[in-house]
């Protein structure tokens, strides 16, 4: 009885040490480029780029399989940062340059179901069960993932007004596109 317990315990201990050692000794460093790209992406995990999350998209970019302009939540900021990092030419964001929008919850209609809370990848929705929810505007990335699950359709995307605090110079790439359309 005791030998059995001891033998198994020792076996398990030895294997545990072996695996622990192996995980340190044979640690594989992931591609540093992927990590850098991943750090630039907004981590909304919204899947609008066509990849199942930000990290797979980062891997695809690093391999050169995906373009750098597929991330709508990141917008031009991300495209410019990626272009800078990878030495590629910046392009307008896929699907046209969207104005920045944030989600807005109509608090009269909200039933407090918490479904949008679970959908939000950046925890920008505040609320609890059976209490109305509200959006923390400064956190919202405009990924639209909360619109779909709402059972009472009380979430709408509203454009952010351009104010002196939020206004930026238009990027050259984004500005080039409308001109081309005119010409």
């Amino acid at each position: 009885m005791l030998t059995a317990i001891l033998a198994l315990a020792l076996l398990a201990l030895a294997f545990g040490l072996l695996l622990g050692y192996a995980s340190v000794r044979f640690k594989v460093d992931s591609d540093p480029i992927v990590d850098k790209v991943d750090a630039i992406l907004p981590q909304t995990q919204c899947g609008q780029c066509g990849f199942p999350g930000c990290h797979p998209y980062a891997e695809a970019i690093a391999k050169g399989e995906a373009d750098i302009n597929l991330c709508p939540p990141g917008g031009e900021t991300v495209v410019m940062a990626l272009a800078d990092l990878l030495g590629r030419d910046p392009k307008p964001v896929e699907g046209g340059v969207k104005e920045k929008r944030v989600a807005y919850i109509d608090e009269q209609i909200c039933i407090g179901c918490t479904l949008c809370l679970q959908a939000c990848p950046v925890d920008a929705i505040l609320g609890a069960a059976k209490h109305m929810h509200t959006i923390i505007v400064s956190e919202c990335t405009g990924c639209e993932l909360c619109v779909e699950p709402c059972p009472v359709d009380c979430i709408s995307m509203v454009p952010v007004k351009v104010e002196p605090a939020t206004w930026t110079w238009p990027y050259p790439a984004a500005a080039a596109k409308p001109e081309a359309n005119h010409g």
Partner: protein
Amino acid sequence: MTEYALILVSTVLVNNFVLVKFLGLCPFMGVSRKLETALGMGLATTFVLTLSSVCAYLTNEFLLAPLGIEYLRTIAFILVIAVVVQFTEMVVHKTSPVLYQVLGIFLPLITTNCAVLGVALLNTQAQHSFLESAVYGFGAAVGFSLVLVLFAAMRERITVSDVPAVFRGPAIALITAGLMSMAFMGFSGLVKG
């Protein structure tokens, strides 16, 4: 030498683990949709089965038998197999990225499979020697891969053929597996004893 050849033929064809012993059915049904994944799975299984049957033999011979605790075989084997596979996965990941890409996701998948444990237990039951255990494990894996690849090829054909609506999907796959199993039963008698 003939002994080993016999073991090989008997495990690959006559006592095929999937179709005659009905072990390892979940990867058989699960990973057989595409020929390439089936090939990858077959390779990974060959690797794991050979390795694990050898390790299980060593554990049984040098740890369990001397201490008289053979009744702990199942749990000890599970432990050994899981660790060995995890360890080799790490080593392969570090040393050979190409091989890792081929085997990668399939290695942990096959670890906890019943065929792997089954081979180890059957080995000790039949009181195989070290080399016999290795050949037995290898043969079982080759048999598994052969059947998996054949089945995957058939399923690829079936998906484009005109199957009656009620039989579509898993139903026709199971029927195909059954027919294959009956065909493999025909090999019994090929090897005596």
